[in-house]
């Protein structure tokens, strides 16, 4: 046993025995270690990171641009990738898709897409396509993958009413949908910390009034309020401004729950012995808040934030789907889903729901990440 040293009468810290070095790890190192043990949280985190990479460089990842359309491919189903081709001289490796011939089914009166094995459209990685600026800076015309010859029909996930590539549009939609959550939550966070902090710090009548006000706001039905506010945005406002106005509308309600979390933490923290000890050490209120209290619940706030983002994404999707949120030419998952508003379209072209799938994956991943972070936020309890 190495915990007791007889010559000095000293007792070594337990961590020195368990795991050398652990006693030197600070709070964030412990949070990180605990988070890594939460498998689902880590998986969620990886998906979230990938989603934000997509949001950063959709021009490169999408096979075609937003505007590209092909009228003869209206509601075309997804094309299947074929890896090779027998051209009479034996099988040859040639990844390609085949073009569609259209036939009219006279019984139902519907247009049918039939693969035309003769029209081969070779595909590949790093193909040349429409020119764009990567990250808005680097001019290039390379795309991660697509038809080798630019402009040829290539619809991995089918096409919409105007014959636009659903996959490309979903990839572009990631940018707006993932960031609207971030910006909305950032706004909520500012209000939440400010108002919750005031409420928790002053207590008494101020706290009482703020809490009743929060209850009032939370009692207002969310969707009608959003609809009302969104309808108040004039049609003449440019799309980019609509985007910002929508984030503000979303955070009008979003800050309340954050404010409650912050207030609760402040109240709990105020009676902690180490905060009392800091007061006795002579720390002023500013030092106590920023050096002792804020670091203690920062990790909790981060967890709460990551759990609030999915709500924002869902709210934006709902608003845009109803046609009162974002409008074309801005493309978000909600805007894309407008295409899938009637049952007949969905029945004949279910691939229009792809953006819905993206919403589900993003929301689940953020929730798992938030769960993991929440468990890791207090690493001392295990």
């Amino acid at each position, binding site marked *: *046993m*190495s*915990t*007791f040293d*007889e010559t*000095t*009468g*000293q*007792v*070594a*810290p*337990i*961590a*020195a*025995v*368990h795991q050398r070095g*652990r*006693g*030197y*790890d*600070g*709070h964030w190192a*412990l949070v990180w270690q605990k988070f890594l043990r939460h498998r689902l949280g880590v998986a969620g985190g990886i998906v979230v990171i990938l989603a934000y990479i997509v949001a950063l460089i959709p021009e490169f990842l999408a096979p075609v641009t937003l505007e590209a359309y092909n009228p003869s491919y209206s509601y075309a189903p997804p094309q299947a990738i074929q890896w090779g081709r027998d051209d009479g001289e034996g099988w040859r490796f040639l990844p390609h898709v085949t073009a569609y011939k259209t036939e009219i089914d006279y019984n139902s009166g519907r247009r049918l897409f039939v693969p035309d094995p003769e029209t081969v459209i070779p595909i590949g990685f790093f193909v040349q396509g429409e020119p764009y600026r990567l990250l808005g800076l680097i001019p290039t015309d390379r795309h991660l993958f697509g038809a080798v010859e630019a402009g040829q029909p290539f619809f991995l996930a089918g096409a919409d009413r105007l014959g636009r590539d659903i996959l490309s549009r979903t990839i572009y939609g990631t940018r707006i949908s993932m960031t609207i959550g971030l910006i909305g939550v950032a706004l909520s966070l500012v209000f939440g910390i400010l108002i919750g902090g005031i409420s928790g710090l002053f207590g*008494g*009548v101020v706290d*009482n009034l703020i809490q009743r006000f929060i209850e009032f706001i939370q009692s207002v039905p969310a969707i009608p309020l959003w609809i009302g506010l969104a309808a108040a945005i004039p049609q003449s406002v440019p799309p980019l401004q609509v985007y910002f106005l929508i984030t503000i509308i979303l955070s009008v309600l979003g800050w309340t729950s954050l404010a409650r979390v912050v207030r609760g933490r402040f109240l709990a923290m105020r009676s*902690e*012995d*180490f905060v*009392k*000890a*800091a*007061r*006795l*050490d*002579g*720390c002023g209120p500013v*030092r106590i808040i920023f050096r*002792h209290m804020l*670091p*203690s619940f920062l990790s909790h706030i981060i967890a709460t934030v990551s759990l609030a983002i999915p709500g924002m994404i869902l709210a934006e999707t709902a608003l845009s789907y109803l046609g009162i949120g974002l409008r074309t030419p801005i493309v978000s998952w909600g805007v894309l889903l407008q295409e899938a508003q009637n049952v007949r379209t969905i029945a004949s072209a279910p691939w229009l729901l792809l953006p819905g799938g993206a919403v589900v994956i993003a929301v689940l991943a953020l929730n798992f990440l938030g769960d993991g972070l929440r468990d890791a936020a207090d690493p*001392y309890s295990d």
Partner: protein
Amino acid sequence: MDNLVEIRDLTITFAHSVDVVTGLDLDIPAGKTLCLVGESGCGKSVTAKAILQVIDHPGRVSGGAINLRQANGAVLDIAATKPTSPVMRHVRGADIAMIHQEPMSFLSPLYTIGNQISEALTLHRKMSEKEARAEGIRMLEQVGMPDPERRYDSYTFQLSGGQRQRAMIAMALINQPRLLIADEPTTALDVTTQANILDLLAQLQRDSGMAVLFITHDLGVVAEIADEVAVMYLGKIVERGPVKEVLEHPRHPYTRGLLASMPRLDGDFKAPLKAIPGMVPPPALRPTGCSFHPRCEWAVAGFCNMISVLETELGNDHMVACHAYGPQAAKIDKHATRTPAAVAPAERRAESMEPLLSVRDLHKHFPIRSGFFQRQTGAVRAVNDISLDIYPGETLGLVGESGCGKSTLGQTIVGLHRADGGAIRFADGEHEPADLLTARGATAKRLRTDIRMIFQDPTGSLNPRMRVRDIIGEVLQVNSRFSAGEIEAKVQALLSKVGLSPDYAERYPHAFSGGQRQRIAIARALASDPRLVIADEAVSALDVSVQTQIINMMKSLQAEMGLTYLFVSHDLGVIANISDRVAVMYAGRIVEIGSTEAIFRNPRHPYTEALLAAIPGRGVSKPRDRIRLGGHVPDPSQQLVGCSFADRCQYAQPACRAVMPPLEGTADHRFACIRADELRLRTVTGQPELVGA
């Protein structure tokens, strides 16, 4: 088989194949009380849980047998029975019952206690609801619940701590178990309530003839209640025997160490205590050979640390597992002692000396607010007109039951609460005397560094996000003009002063054990070279041997740095050992104050008498001589007329309820009782008690 339960070679394993209990043999005799003693982390509770097959995941019994003799004479091996089987459920319902330290986590807040007590009856004995109710009320009466008919329909939050404990005991005993397992049932209670509950358990045990397995860390409680004792260290029994044998002739160095680290109330109160060095290592790091050898003063290198010990019978049913009594006893020198660090006696104060701190007519009322606008509708008088002096270099002990206002008094002096009236004068002889309540600016800043506080819970009082260096150095950073290098040097010096390596400055609090954290907290309090340190239950959360280490350290720091302590505690043994003078508080007032000798040997207030009588294991006298306090501290939001103790006082007369008794007497011993002169109060201290090592 004469024993109710025979545990043979029991091994309990937790995750990563760590054996918490290894090869444990223990007999629980029928109709007797067996006490299982040891520090925390020795495996006492998990052994008890194994008997009921309720070990928390991921622990499990991985070997051995637990043989229970059932009512029909058959023997059941509990270790081989599935935890979820009907047989085991029947054992839990009818044969073995358990009570815990914390009744609030044992009783459901959603059901009345009657509902919970009678559930076992309707479930296991198929009684009708009416019969069950009658039986439940009878049981509540038996456990001494006041007004059982009404309490039967009460919820847990309507009961006091002692009443909850009684309700839990009633629930455990309703099906007349043959074995009651009591896991530290009185540890969380006030000393007066503890005495009542111990009396109750002893009486119930006598009346019903059941066996009791009583788990505790307090040897005083053992002396009070046990027939037999088993001392446990790191998952093994190291000494076992009849209570008188073990406490009067302890053989194992661990038992001797535990006894020696207990504050004694016979002879010299202030005799330095001998602590067992170090602490219980985690089971994963169980030392080889005799697992106690690193902390043992007899240990012989190359022998005790190599060869595992066997049990030795000493006659009189006394068993010990130590090499010093085994076949190779000659190798060990039983007189080898590790001399405790000599504690220089603190300088006694001169009678004429001016007090360092004078509290005069201090009031602290907490407003009770209600309604939307938080209007004040009443007040809790936590500190109600208190005057006392603390002299430089002394330790003033402050005792009382929980809720008597002793912590509030300490926190008001240090400045955590704003007093509502009175004055606190601080005169350190160097500066102009200042009033703590009115001081502003530079004076207030100086006072804050002169008067410091140590909190009870060392985990909560250290910021987990800060390194030890920053925690200790905070007060220097904030208040003075030291450079970073000076602060660093000072922190290092403080760490060695409190017995920690200066290297630990870079670590975070979570790397340390409870005792070590309290050392860090003490270093923080001493960082500003204070004159007065207020220790608010500073050792109450610690294990016995660690508690003794900290007390000894605080005493030597006092002598070294010329500190003055206000030591707040509910533990009279600790108070007697550390204090020069003692103040006894009741319901926001001081009822008696005087030198430690005077208070403990010649108490003049009935409340002091009752507190002393409640200390477990002291002056084990005939039960009829005992003084037991019923009831609890009066609601401090009520304005009381007359003596606040009158309702619980066995000597109370109508006159007591008419006038508030003033605090009178000599300068050395004052008390607030109008009958003090006619009463002949008894004290249990000074009588021979547990005879130790």
